[in-house]
């Protein structure tokens, strides 16, 4: 059992044509439905839904408040390594990018962690490139053991692993794994990942299945907007989420919306996604799925982040550094991508409070998973 047969039953061009053919009547029907379907979701992300944005936002706000209340979760990335054996045309860590490579030692991880704890963080997202010699499963296990005592919730955004590897890491305190497909367009995926293990489209596509079978607590999905038609990629993400929720029903899910950002001498977006379109998509996801967590990173501008909070977002990062050692060890090393919102976690928390939201720093406890002692 895997997502692959469902994926293969949905040809990219057919999906795209179907989305762009939606009419105002389709949008109105989707808005009026008590429960939205994937077909309704196509209508809500279609160009025909643009005039209905305010109505979608109002509904999205209501649904989000009902399910998540007036709270927003805070998390922060902790980049452990920028070593990478992959070539990705859009990424600052790409193998062919001439930057100084660095991997944090346990002592350095703790130095970084001390800064984040000082800011109040209890949920950390560990990030690495893909370099199995230096940042393979042994290294990740060591990182979890080192950091587990200091954080209640540990997420990871690293290379896709085998099921047995996830089964080894989960008891060490791994709560969440984020794995973005980048794009569901198989041919374009190959173009953007010409070398390295990441060039295997299907191994990446099957990752959420391996995670689900391993019994992960939460997983995050998404694509990188800018590589291909955003509407079609967003539909495949929704299709994938729908399959995963039905199959691995004990797992929690989140979605993220990274838009391609400028990096040193690398790819410019093929498709530009405007702020308006991103809002449309966020609201459409909320209208489709009232329970999924929606996350926004510091890739987005302060103005955009301040306003999007009320429209469906349930978790945000703040104060992020996207270079290993960026908080304490080596603040000047090269970033994976530029961030747009430079405000400190305290400034973000104050912004949330001004808007009537409680910034939630802690929302998990390792003791709730009896395997972690």
């Amino acid at each position, binding site marked *: 059992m895997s997502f692959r047969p469902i994926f293969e039953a949905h040809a990219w061009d057919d999906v795209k044509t179907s989305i762009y053919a939606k009419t105002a009547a389709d949008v109105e029907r989707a808005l009026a439905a008590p429960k939205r379907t994937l077909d309704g979701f196509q209508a809500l992300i279609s160009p025909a839904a643009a005039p209905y944005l305010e109505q979608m936002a109002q509904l999205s706000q209501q649904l989000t408040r*009902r399910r*998540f209340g*007036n709270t927003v979760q805070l998390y922060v990335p902790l980049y452990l390594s920028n070593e990478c054996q992959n070539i990705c045309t859009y990424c600052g860590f790409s193998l062919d990018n001439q930057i100084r490579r660095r991997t944090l030692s346990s002592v350095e991880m703790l130095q970084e962690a001390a800064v984040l704890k000082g800011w109040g963080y209890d949920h950390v997202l560990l990030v690495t490139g893909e370099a199995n010699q230096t940042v393979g499963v042994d290294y990740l296990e060591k990182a979890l053991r080192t950091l587990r005592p200091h954080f209640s919730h540990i997420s990871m955004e690293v290379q896709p692993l085998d099921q047995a590897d996830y089964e080894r890491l989960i008891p060490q305190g791994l709560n969440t794994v984020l794995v973005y497909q980048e794009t569901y367009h198989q041919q374009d995926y190959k173009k953007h990942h010409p070398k390295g293990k990441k060039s295997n489209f299907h191994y990446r596509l099957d990752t959420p299945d391996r995670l689900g079978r391993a019994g992960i607590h939460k997983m995050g999905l998404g694509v990188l907007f800018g590589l291909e038609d955003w509407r079609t990629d967003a539909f495949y993400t929704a299709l994938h989420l729908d399959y995963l929720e039905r199959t691995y029903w*004990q797992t929690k899910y989140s979605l993220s919306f990274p838009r391609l950002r400028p990096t040193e001498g690398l790819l410019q977006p093929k498709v530009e996604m405007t702020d308006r379109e991103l809002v449309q998509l966020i609201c459409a996801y909320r209208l489709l799925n009232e329970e999924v967590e929606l996350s926004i990173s510091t890739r987005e501008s302060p103005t955009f982040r301040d306003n999007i909070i009320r429209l469906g977002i349930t978790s945000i990062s703040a104060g992020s550094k996207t270079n290993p050692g960026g908080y304490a060890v080596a603040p000047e090393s090269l970033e994976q991508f530029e961030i747009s919102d430079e405000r400190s976690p305290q400034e973000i928390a104050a912004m949330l*409070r001004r808007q009537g939201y*409680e910034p939630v720093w802690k*929302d998990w406890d390792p003791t709730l*998973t009896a395997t972690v002692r």
Partner: protein
Amino acid sequence: MTTHPLVIAGRTFSSRLFTGTGKFSSAQLMEEALLASGSELVTVALKRVDVTSADDDLLRHLGHPQFSLLPNTSGVRTAKEAVFAAQLAREALETNWLKLEIHPDPKYLLPDPIETLKAAEELVQLGFVVLPYIHADPVLCKRLEEVGVAAVMPLGAPIGSNKGLLTREFLEIIIGQSRVPVVVDAGIGAPSHAAAALEMGADAVLVNTAIAVAGQPVAMAQAFKMAVEAGRLAYEAKLAAPASHAVASSPLTAFLD
């Protein structure tokens, strides 16, 4: 007229409104709303508090003598995890009261009846006062009663949905046959829903989302307080039964008396 107080596991409550602590826009506002609600039993998610810190923000705002804390195990998926979490909560929060929540399904947060029964049995033996959150399942309620829970907490509708008493038919059966207090938990979205639950004989209700996400949580908390009082008073005053046909105020057979 004053109504009868509620007694659970030997403890007397004058308020039949239990409250939750999630989803408020600030801990300060939560404190004000809970004070306005008159609630004496306040549930708090173990996952939200830092039990290692004496200065946890949430707990600091709950430090009023009228509040008794009811730690909940929200987040656990199995009986084994629930028992472990309960022991931690007992040690950290110095209470053996526990709202037992086991929902392996993170989407609708629906309780697992099998794991809940297993955990309840073990926790009662370990000396906990167990209040399990469950489906409105009359048979399960009886099974839980047999293993020694202090009350049952059937849901009115999916948690956080504000849809009211969708399980009314089953709640009526549960209330009709329960030997322990029945607390309707989850789904109550308006004071009228709370009043309806009390009118039909529920011993208490637990409300969170409807207060926390209201436009004015403090005022809404007060509205719930009044609704619960009205509902209980109506129940004790014995509601006139609805009839599908007209009943003459001067019965035709009165001459026989």
